[in-house]
């Protein structure tokens, strides 16, 4: 018989605790705990569209188990922007902050267990606790940094260098993600990806 989803909650909460403490190490544990207790757990089937483009659900997610693909559509093609695995946090952040339409689609590539919290609840902890506001600032800085870093990589690294970097940082994704999504994420064609992979 399959385990009940709730039985996974404590271990994912522990991972969330570790993730947030890594972002902001000096967060008081009792304050962090209060925030973590606000997350609920839910399971999703492979290929579920968690959030389609054009919709904003003001929810912050943490991946307990599974794989998320974040993509947008341009000229009729799907461009994969991010591939996230266990112990990653994500949200339709731009849409939440600006009020503009969300133009990304969030899709689950595997059966997944996600922790989630309403952004309004998450944000209420910023005013409640100074350390949580600091955590929030650091978290958005990390997102911002990741976006900037990706821009730099696409501009200045060759396709092969970007592939090598991907292998170095996301080894486990190679076996879990269809190659066409990896190619799209790296900004190259599947043919180019195959050529590069043939060398290794």
């Amino acid at each position: 018989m399959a385990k009940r989803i709730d039985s996974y909650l404590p271990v994912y909460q522990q991972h969330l605790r570790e993730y947030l403490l890594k972002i902001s190490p000096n967060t008081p544990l009792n304050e962090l705990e209060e925030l973590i207790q606000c997350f609920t757990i839910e399971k999703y089937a492979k290929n579920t569209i968690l959030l389609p483009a054009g919709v904003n659900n003001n929810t912050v997610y943490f991946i307990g188990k599974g794989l998320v693909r974040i993509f947008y559509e341009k000229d009729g093609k799907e461009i994969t922007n991010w591939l996230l695995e266990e112990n990653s946090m994500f949200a339709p952040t731009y849409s939440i902050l600006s009020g503009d339409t969300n133009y990304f689609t969030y899709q689950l590539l595997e059966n997944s267990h996600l922790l989630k919290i309403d952004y309004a609840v998450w944000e209420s902890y910023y005013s409640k606790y100074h350390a949580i506001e600091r955590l929030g600032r650091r978290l958005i800085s990390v997102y911002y940094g990741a976006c900037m870093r990706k821009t730099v990589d696409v501009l200045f690294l060759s396709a092969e260098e970007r592939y090598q970097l991907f292998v170095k940082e996301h080894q486990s994704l190679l076996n879990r993600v269809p190659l066409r999504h990896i190619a799209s994420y790296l900004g190259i064609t599947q043919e180019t990806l195959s050529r590069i992979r043939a060398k290794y």
Partner: protein
Amino acid sequence: MSKIPEKDITLYHSILAKELLQYTSVPEQDLQAFVSCFEFHEYKKKDIIIAPGNTDAFKIFFILKGITRIYYVLEDKEITVSFKMENNVVYNGFTIFSGVPNIDNHEALEDLQVLAANIDNLEPLLYKSHPLEHLARKIVEKNYSSFIRSNYNRMFLPAEERYDYFMREMSSIVNRIPLKYVASYLGITPETLSRLRAKH
């Protein structure tokens, strides 16, 4: 660093304080401590105030007078990314947020007067004051949103719409920017830009 009269630096600090108060209210004492970290500097037209690499990696600038152009060099070509003007904040986001060496040049398009501070001096104040931390979070969120927005515009809007958007956002300074830089920013040739301008 230029030596300027006490009353001038007080005036400049109050200009910065007024700009910061647009994000959120901050107690007078905390705000004063924050703006006092900023020193007055002057630069000449064509000076590079933030250079590629890690030079001045942790400086943050507030423009009192003048305009800057942010560009990077790709295969010997200058690609203009954005323009900053009076009351804008300028910093090296690459290193501050993602730890990678800066790729951008921040060039003075006119003689500049700025206030500059070191991030390392500002951080301790954020620890001591919740309102200042709130201010910092709001500023980072706004900059993150602008970054995502300008990426979106560059990807999805046709040149003519981007031109309209640019003319609205930069209406106060567009006469002070050489057209070849505007063309580069819009990702079009100077000829195409002339054609667009003739239509309006």
